């Protein structure tokens, strides 16, 4: 997996969101009116946007929050931040481009434990479902290694979902399967939109802190890097 500095990701990866607006960039016609036509490019862009949002969210919860976290919770959130950052780097290395590097978040999300847990649970639930839909669609398009890689990400996000439920005082494991909320990844857009365009009750914006800030913050408490399926050749050997 390639290493990207903040400058590299921002310079090469962010689409011209500030000029066109989210709607114009993706095109509501193609996103909302479509049925099953997500392209790989669209999936990777949506995923990269979601991962940049997740990085910004977890970084802020850890550095600018009034929520009292016990050490094990903080430890899990640091790992979650490092994991999301790893996903972002993978997506950018594979052509994904976040549509923005600034995000809006619900008011009080970093002041109240229950609000934080509820909002994060909703977001992670949507992310898991979006990656599951991406897996289905990319499998349909015949790219088996990328399909399996997005499944690796979906599976990892599901852990965040479980642990955030636990942080909110809920049973962590409450469902039998990762929820297939979407048939197409683009169906996640309404969930993402208020984070990008300042929905009602949202404040901000918060800026993506950058690769260097995340790496420095995580320090030695990061997670183990794992080889994605895309590192395999089509015959099964690792490249």
């Amino acid at each position, binding site marked *: 997996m390639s290493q990207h500095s903040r400058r590299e990701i921002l310079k090469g990866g962010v*689409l011209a969101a500030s000029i066109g607006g989210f709607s*114009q*960039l993706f*095109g509501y*016609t*193609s996103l909302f009116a*479509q*049925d*099953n*036509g997500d392209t790989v490019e*669209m999936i990777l862009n949506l995923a990269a946007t979601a991962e940049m949002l997740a990085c910004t969210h977890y970084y802020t919860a850890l550095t600018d929050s009034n929520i009292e976290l016990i050490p094990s919770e903080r*430890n*899990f959130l640091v*790992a*979650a931040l490092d*994991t999301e950052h790893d*996903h972002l780097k993978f997506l950018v290395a594979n052509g994904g481009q976040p549509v923005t590097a600034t995000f809006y978040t619900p008011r009080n999300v970093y002041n109240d434990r229950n609000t934080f847990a509820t909002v994060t649970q909703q977001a992670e639930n949507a992310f*898991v479902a979006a*990656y*599951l839909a991406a*897996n*289905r*669609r990319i*499998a349909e398009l*015949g790219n*088996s*290694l990328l*399909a*399996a890689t997005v*499944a*690796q*990400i*979906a*599976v*990892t996000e*599901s*852990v*965040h979902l*479980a*642990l955030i439920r636990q942080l909110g005082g809920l*049973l*962590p*494991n*409450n*469902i*039998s*399967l*990762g*929820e*297939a909320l979407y*048939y197409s990844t683009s169906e996640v857009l309404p969930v993402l939109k208020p984070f990008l365009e300042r929905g009602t009750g949202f404040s901000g914006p918060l800026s993506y802190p950058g690769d260097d800030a995340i790496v420095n913050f995580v320090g030695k408490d990061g*997670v*183990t*890097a*794992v*080889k994605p*399926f895309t590192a*395999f050749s089509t*015959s*099964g050997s690792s490249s």
Partner: protein
Amino acid sequence: MSQVSRRSMIKGALVSGASLLTFNQIFGYNRIFGQTNGDDMETILALATTAELIATTHYYTVLTESKIALSPDEVNILRGFLDAELQHLEILYANQGNSVATQFYIPTGVYNDRQQFSEITEQLETTFIAAYLAATRQFAELGFPLLAGTAAQVGAIEQEHLAIVRQIGGRRPNNSALAKALFYNISEAAPALQPFLEGGSGYEGPKPFPGADAIRDLIRDAGVVPTAPYTDTSVFTQAVATQEASTGICTVTPRGNYNCNVRSGPSLSYGVVGRLAPNETLTVNGQAVDNDGFPWWRATTNDRWIRSDIVRAVAGVCDSLPIVAK
């Protein structure tokens, strides 16, 4: 999701005569270990079904025979695990998965020591997750996207189990950036499962699969919410139907109550050659992106183009249209 009684589960799913055969004989090492990309559907489903039977037997046993002092929260969590594994098993049976055994060997002392239970369960769940990820890859390769999606759904829950069981053992629950891709083909998981099926040094048993009815009696009200798998296409009827109806063409109409310019090429720099009124439609069969990043749809008649963001599809899937030369 079908409900499978213990009797029908065992009767319908156990490979005939499995108890008389060894794991090697049933799967066949030539087929399992010698292949590169050749797992067939039967092998994939058989391995997954066998793995789920091991998991249900394992979690049932820890809940009913263990000497580990589990907290009430941990008991509830493990009952949730057990229910989820049973539901996975039912999905596999519904998709013609056949287990190769209904009794299993377990590492000695695993139900007497919290740490050992945590570590052995982590090893098992790691194997299961990697196997489901390999299955996802293989289903994608074989052209079964709904099965690929369903395998990923199962993998997501197994990864939750892995994280929480690490936590039970006092280790950080989320310790890796991605779920581990240990196997390229699901059959590569066979050596990890083999001692649970055949026993060996350091293993005791066998323990029989307790049956679906006994499991439900134990779970009672601590079950997890059943979630629809991708293979249950009734959940996505509209999307699937639309996809199947896609024929490589798409029909569009103006998004609003206004006329849309139709141009001779895919950008605003081309001249206007016609207009599409609000009550009119245009059939398109190709697309191209202009320098501003907007997709344009190409009409099937003559070389006429319309910008994608000012129209909406009324039939077909425009985004799937082939990219064509400008």
